[in-house]
């Protein structure tokens, strides 16, 4: 199963604007993608939901893991990782 790690870079964490951008990209791609805080207890949430991702309360510097059941999702996950690591 393809996965991708990324570090939240926005000074305000994964707030509304970056979460909305991420959710829109996932919805447009139409592939199932989940996002979890890295670590043992990270509960994965639907990456098409900005509210679910905001609910994780991710701050700058937090590491997240993106994953997808879809075998052809590696390029999408890389793109999403880059979005998370954008500084805006």
């Amino acid at each position, binding site marked *: 199963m393809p996965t991708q790690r990324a570090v939240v870079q926005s000074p*305000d964490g994964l707030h509304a604007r970056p979460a909305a951008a991420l*959710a*829109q990209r996932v919805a447009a791609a139409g592939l199932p993608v989940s996002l979890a805080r890295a670590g043992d207890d990270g509960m994965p949430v639907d990456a098409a*939901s*900005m*509210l679910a991702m*905001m*609910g994780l*309360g991710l701050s700058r510097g937090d590491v997240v893991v993106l994953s997808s059941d879809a075998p052809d999702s590696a390029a999408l996950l890389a793109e999403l990782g880059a979005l998370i690591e954008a500084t805006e």
Partner: protein
Amino acid sequence: MSATQRDTAAPLRGLGVVPGLVSGQAIRMSPTVSEPPRTQLPPGTSTDPAAARIAEAATEVGRELSTAADRTSGTSAELLRTTAVMAADPALVAAAQALVRNERLTPESAVWSAGTALADQLAGLGGVLAERARDVRDVRDRIVAVLLGRPAPGIPEPGHPFVLVAHDLAPADTARLDAGRVLALVLSGGGATSHTAILARALGIPTVLGVAGADDIPTGTALVVDAGAGAVHLDPGPDLVARAGSVTRRRRTFSGRCTTRDGRPVPLLANVGAPGDAAAAAQAGAEGVGLFRTEFCFLDRTEAPRRCEQVASYREVFAAFPDRKVVVRTLDAGADKPLPFLGVPDEPNPALGVRGLRVATYAPEILDEQLAAIAEAAAAERAEVWVMAPMVSTAAEADAFVDRCGRYGLTSAGVMIEVPSAAILSRHLLRTATFASIGTNDLTQYAMAADRMLPQLASLGSAWQPAVLALVAQTCQGAAPRGRPVGVCGEAAADPALAAVLVGLGVSSLSMSASALADVEAVLARVDQDDCVRLAQQALDADGADQARQIVRQNLPALSELGL
């Protein structure tokens, strides 16, 4: 009351904060959505159609918000687009649908519960995310309104320009204000320096606040709003409508160089609150920046911004004004605008506490870092950079600030005049400070002991108060012997009538929202310096703010000629 009686009826009165004479139809803000009764679907009915309606309603709200976003630009558009994505959020829809399927709740009740739970969850996270809880509730209300077949809460969309009548506007609503569709704003609440007033000024929408009786104006009423005079005429006669039509706001443009009729230059500068505003201000012809607020660099942060971030932001503003003056105000925060990294404790009375320059006692390194960043940005650009400190009370504070600026090579170092003590003894402060800039909002609040956010104190909290004008005069008198320039950067400078008075009191430059530049120039170009001095004397001799404004308006015919 019959229409004929109404023709002659006295207009409703309020505080005009953005002048303009317009005629139009009143449309009230749509009512807010309240919690629907927690009811269940009738026994035996299938839950599938109910669940499907939730998805449809959410999609519809998302689409409406996207359309609204396309009609606007900048920050408002971005905010609306983000909210549109939130409306169609699968987590919100799925949670509401689960409540329909598992608890047989009606769609509206399910959306209310699910939206409230998500909003509360965000609110519990604190910080920037907590602020979005309001947007989740807004989205929730919009979906519930669609499900109930009610108009969307907030600013209505009648399909033609209208006069918006409301108690006050929530920040989420002000972001949706569009000067193309809202001809004027009539509010029963609101203060002259409230966020609504500030945004209306930025957009140039004629606005009257604190209008007693505005809550009783029904949607559809014909109105003439004479915002400069603070008057709202209900069912106006044909003469009044014709007069409003004849001065229909020609979109004036600023020439880029303001002089009085007899040729005295009065530079008109712009207030800038974020780097993005600077290009727009330059495009509007502003002769420089009279107030560059630097708080944007520091807000919503848990630690002080790094110097390189500050330098980049400041350079963006300086670059928009090569060879022009840009007055940078150092960080204006404290107990009233708390920043976690300043370490200022909570205070019982933050307006009188550690704020503005006083914060430098707690956190001198933040001021040093900021001055270093300003100096570095100034060296890299061609703007003529001046620096000033907020909330200066004594000559000793002014001396220390000027000295500190000098260490970074910043030689044009001045003071804001916001505290009456600084106005009274400006001659002492201006021994070392090279200029003064009067912040009329705070100066009025401190001189009149009136909280500027309280609508019931609107008249006391007006910069038209003769005592406030006397403090402006005293500041200018103290500055004159040393030839120190005195500017005004408070909202008073954007009022064309008051602008003439300020010039008469000895103020040499005015700084305002870029949208006010053209109207202020239009009035100043129609008066001589002597007229300004005469108007200033009449205002100083008045018994109160309302009388001062009335006398000056009567003696300044240019205002009605211009529809201001």
